[in-house]
């Protein structure tokens, strides 16, 4: 296994009003293996989104560094796809135009662009909606479109910031299934941020638990459930045990 993403002593401070400073992330270190699906869970203010934004290149670390393929992250780039909680689809573009956006930016000719877009639109099950505007889609469909758009530029890494956080419980479970299915067909290194303990255990091969004030790594819990994950696994005693362990780490970190 090769190291794909490496957080090395990453800290990030934010200036607050007055002279106060807020330590959003305190000396965060973590290695993510190539092709691994890690989930990051923690209470609000634990710095999980900060860590992800630094890896995405949307935020600069105050100190420390993030390496991707052993090269330091200097800014955003298409090799690191990001999926936002708010979907962030371009509302004036159709589903297909959204998915083609990154390819068009890269200057790919129209015909090839369309083939790739169609492939990923079909993969997330939005074939019939390729010509639709985002306003006509449900929240779940919007996020599937965003996933297709991120995949289309062929990133090596997918960074997902609470992508299913705004969806209802049933849609969320469906999208978790679909995401794992997509991931098994188009294997990428995934860092998935969530505040949902079930989701963290169900999706990840490791659950990274973070704690707040200051935001920091608290515990890494390996999930020894094989992929593909199934609905039965969700109801198994092993799953329940892992969920309890993650839950306790997230909500009562001082008890350990």
């Amino acid at each position, binding site marked *: 296994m090769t190291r794909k993403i490496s957080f090395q002593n990453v800290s990030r401070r934010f200036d607050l009003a007055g002279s106060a400073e807020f330590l959003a992330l305190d000396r965060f270190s973590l290695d993510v293996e190539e092709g691994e699906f890690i989930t990051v869970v923690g209470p609000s203010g634990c710095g999980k989104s900060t860590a992800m934004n630094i890896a995405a290149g949307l935020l600069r670390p105050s100190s420390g560094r993030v390496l991707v393929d052993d090269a330091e992250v200097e800014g955003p780039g298409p090799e690191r796809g990001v999926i936002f909680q708010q979907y962030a689809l*371009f509302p004036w573009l159709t589903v297909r135009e959204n998915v083609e956006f990154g390819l068009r*930016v890269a200057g790919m000719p129209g015909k090839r662009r369309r083939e790739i877009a169609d492939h990923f639109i079909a993969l997330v099950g939005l074939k019939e909606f390729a010509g639709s505007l985002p306003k006509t889609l449900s929240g779940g469909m919007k996020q599937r479109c965003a996933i297709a*758009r991120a995949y289309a530029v062929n990133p090596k890494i997918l960074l997902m910031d609470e992508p299913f956080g705004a969806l209802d419980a049933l849609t969320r479970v469906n999208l978790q299934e679909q995401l794992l299915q997509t991931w098994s067909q188009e294997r990428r290194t995934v860092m998935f941020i969530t505040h949902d303990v079930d989701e963290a255990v169900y999706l990840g091969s490791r659950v990274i638990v973070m704690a707040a004030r200051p935001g920091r790594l608290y515990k890494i819990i390996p999930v020894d459930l094989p992929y593909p994950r199934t609905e039965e696994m969700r109801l198994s005693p092993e799953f329940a045990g892992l969920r309890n362990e993650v839950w306790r780490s997230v909500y009562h970190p001082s008890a350990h």
Partner: protein
Amino acid sequence: MTLPMDAAPAAASRRPWLPAATMLGLNVLAVLLGLGAWGFVTAEGVVGLPGPGAVLSAGLTLARNGQLLSDALASLGRVLTGFLLGVLVAIPVGFLMGWYKVARGLIEPYVQFFRTIPPLAVIPLAIVTMGIGETPKIFVIFLAAFLSSVVATFQGVVSVDRTLINAARVLGAKDATIFRRVVIPASTPFIMVGVRIGLGSSWATVVAAELIAAQSGLGFRMQQAQLYYDLPTIFVSLIAIGVLGLLMDRIIIAFDRVLTAWQEKA
């Protein structure tokens, strides 16, 4: 006493929804009633104003001898020239202000200052410095259109959703692409609001400018009619101004519908 109070919110939420045809019918009815009332009070001699019949015949006369058309075209020509120039300058300047902090710092004091001066107040200065030809009038209209569109464009650029810009960046887009493919479309709804307000104030400005100094146009016609106590012509001009203003506003709304059809309307 308590019962109707309690019932009030429920009644409010059950406000009857009228179909479009009924709504249009009510509009037409209101216009007919207004015309009827106008005809009644003038026929009874309650006020010393011309009735609908006298205004209609004056309108027909002016339409037949071509004066109405040439006046309307003169006013429209000024408005469209000044308005288009104003919008064409305002949009790039507004983008510049929204995108570059330095440009904003340099331009904003002027925009905020001139916004507080009604464009009409500039007319005396414009006439003294630019003469009595078309230039001062077009300049004043330009100013009216520019000031309302520039602020709207600037607001539009500033309020573009950060997440959309980030989404474009992580897909590999650089500043120029983000500007062209994200900032411009995302601020279109704001710009259209400014354009609509700009057209309204341009129209108001042209008529007033023609009242002060012009040899043609609907405002000029009213000014002339005033000298001869020709009330029907004043009425015809007023109605023409209203109808043309309404038409232009509708055209802008239609444009807006097409350009921002992608918006999620609540």
